[in-house]
């Protein structure tokens, strides 16, 4: 699929989803409804849709090519199949996803994988804010699944996350893992402040630099390595627990060699009485 023109208005494309496309002919797919601004349109009006022969043994793939920055809610509630996106795509990609796979060769906007329940999202570019976060006001964050981002990500990654794995190769913004309940967030790059604010449980691993750690986290120990989703990541790491303000037992691992300014925490480790 390829957009016919550059969209100026947001396009809400819940219908671009393997579950909806399944068992439909090309003509039926072209007639599926979506919204452009406040006008209801069909996929055929906005996109060039082509069918290519594929190997029946393999999973069917929906391939989207072009500038899709205004296209939102693609792959909403999908439960199987594969979406391949070549280009930048808009907000709420893979919202409430229950299975299947989304691969983006480009950047994505905010709320990618929001309220995701299972499946895999792989982004070769960068992602916006609120990766895997729940809808505003809700506490039902990501329940399971994997999100891999090869680039950077914005603020509040993994907000209210309940389980699953988010792995980011680049840098992230502030409030990583805010209100996190469980699951793992791995950041290979640097990270903005206020990491893990309000977290109750789960694991956040920062391999890069962090400006500071919230005062509601207490140092626990220094670990030489940490496991994330079966992979052993070499440290050493400072291990903090928190957020104590919320009686949380979350674990926050922060690289020791890249954060010499946190070395003052080590003196608390020597005093038995300071140990959490």
């Amino acid at each position, binding site marked *: 699929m390829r957009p016919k023109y550059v969209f100026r208005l947001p396009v809400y494309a819940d219908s671009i989803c393997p579950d909806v496309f399944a068992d439909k002919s090309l003509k039926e797919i072209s007639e599926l409804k979506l919204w452009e601004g406040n006008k209801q349109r069909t996929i055929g009006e906005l996109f060039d849709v082509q069918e290519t022969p594929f190997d029946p043994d393999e999973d069917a793939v929906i391939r989207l090519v072009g500038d899709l920055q205004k296209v939102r809610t693609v792959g909403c509630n999908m439960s199987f199949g594969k979406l391949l996106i070549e280009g930048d795509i808009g907000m709420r990609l893979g919202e409430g996803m229950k299975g299947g796979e989304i691969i983006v060769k480009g950047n994505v906007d905010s709320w990618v994988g929001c309220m995701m329940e299972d499946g895999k999202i792989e982004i070769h570019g960068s992602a916006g804010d609120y990766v895997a976060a*729940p*809808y*505003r*006001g*809700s*506490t*039902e964050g990501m329940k399971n699944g994997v999100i891999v981002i090869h680039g950077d990500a914005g603020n509040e990654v993994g907000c209210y996350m309940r389980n699953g794995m988010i792995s980011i190769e680049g840098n992230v913004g502030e409030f990583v893992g805010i209100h996190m309940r469980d699951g793992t967030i791995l950041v290979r790059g640097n990270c903005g402040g206020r990491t893990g604010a309000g977290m109750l449980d789960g694991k956040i691993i920062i391999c890069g630099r962090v400006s500071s750690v919230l005062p509601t986290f207490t140092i626990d120990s220094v670990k030489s390595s940490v496991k994330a989703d079966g992979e052993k990541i070499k440290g050493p790491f400072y291990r903090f627990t928190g957020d104590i303000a919320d009686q949380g037992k979350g674990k926050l691992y922060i690289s020791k060699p890249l954060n010499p300014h946190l070395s003052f925490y080590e003196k608390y480790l020597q005093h038995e009485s300071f140990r959490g």
Partner: protein
Amino acid sequence: MSLLIRNGFVYDPINDVKGEIMDIAVKDGKIVEKVNERTAKMIDCSGMVVMPGGIDIHTHIAGSEVNAGRLLRPEDHYKDVEIKTLTTRSGVGHSIPSTFTTGYRYTRMGYTMICNPSMPPLEARHTHEELEDTPIVDKATFPLLGDWWFALEYLREGMIKECAAHTAWMLSATKGYAIKIVNPGGAEAWGFGRNVKDLDDPVPNFGVTPREIIRGLCKVNRILNLPHTIHVHTNRLGQPGNYLTTIETMRSVEDLSNGCDPVIHITHCQFSAFKGDDWATLRSGAEEIAKYVNRHSHVTLDMGQIVFTNTTTMTADGPWQYTLYELTGNKWVNHDVETETTAGIVPFVYRRKSYVHATMWSIGLELALLVEDPWKIYLTTDHPNGAPFTTYPRIISWLMSRKARERILKRINKRARKRSLLPSIDREYSLYEVAIATRAGQAKALGLTDKGHLGVGADADIAVYGFNPRQTDASRDYRVVRKAFEKAAYTIKSGEIVAKNGVITKKTEGRTFWVDLGISSCAEAASCPEILQDMKKRFRDYWTVELENYFIPEAFLKSSMPIQVKSEV
């Protein structure tokens, strides 16, 4: 315009009509003896149930509190969207729907009058503006007076007559319909971070006890001759062991009754019927309360049933909402309305597998089934505290069918099931009793003479439900009944068909009912100029609003419906 509703099975408890096949004639918004059959629009209701329009005595649908709840819960709106049509406006909200959606959803279920039970007097303007935006249905609202400074002071001094004169002014100033009392004294104490422990615990800084407040306002209610009784949310609501406080509250006004008419309405009684010392030993106190209510005629109740769903709790009982926040750890709002009252909001999920929630579910139904006289207990969920009002059809099916109750019982917490009284109760409501609990009884309790019945002269508010009561066994086919109550075949409001098969066909404005006690301006606030001067000074010292701006003139209400009341002051 005239209508003729033909051949329906009519259930009209006030006129003692029990499912007889009758024609109902409607002309100019009223029910009449007969209409010209050639010009009247015929509605064939053969094989359908015809009832007066539903009335809800207690539902939080408007005001600052509800609006704060809307702001607090974007995720509640996201899940439930109402799309714009040619006749209706768009809206959102599962547990706290927007005003228009509230009106439409009540209309679809065949309801035509709803009462907003908690209005901080200061927020009266806001509340009336929202009520005006709630289309189709008629409305009334009750100002909170149980923690009103002037009332507390008058009652401390035992000045009942003066208190009555002041209350008359207050009701006129806020265009209210009845006296609402929430956790008497407790909300005032909460302003200082405290609560009252029971009926005889004096309110800090005032020295008056909750018992004196309830008794005093009950006497005031009688002096003013108000159509409804005092509407009481009891002390210690939501705390284990509070059923004793509830019984004591009812007992405290026993001697004020003339022997037959009710003098007190205990609202959302389920939340006030907990036995036990703490949450682990929580038991149902429904049996004791029902026993008391069965033996006395001065009390009416409403259920406050819970349904297992995601909802939002909101009451003027600030200390209780704080406790709820501590229990859930959820986001919350707590608010002190200047000198007047408090409010709290906490989103809440009732879970089947929770012992406490399952017990609460059982208590509500036990109350409804153990109180023998259906004229004494009405169906509510204390929307949205127990559940959104859209769950009423489900509760009707539980009341009408033992089988429907057992289906849920099987799936609730094991320990709660073992302790529940429901398996031992065989009673099933008849359709006639449902008509009492959802309209006739509530109309009677509210003192609405033109509503809740289909006699000649009554308002033509009629609900038609699409099932045949002679062929449908509600006990077995409870799903059919539930579906029918969810979407009324016809809702007729003031003689116009406003909804058909769950689709709104006409947009009309409902009226706002208020008691007209003959006070039309701010200056009539007091019997003598000294008291007026004193009130002005107090308002200047403690309120953000001047006394002169406090009074809502009748012209403020777009569709005002004053109920003339002859008071003794």
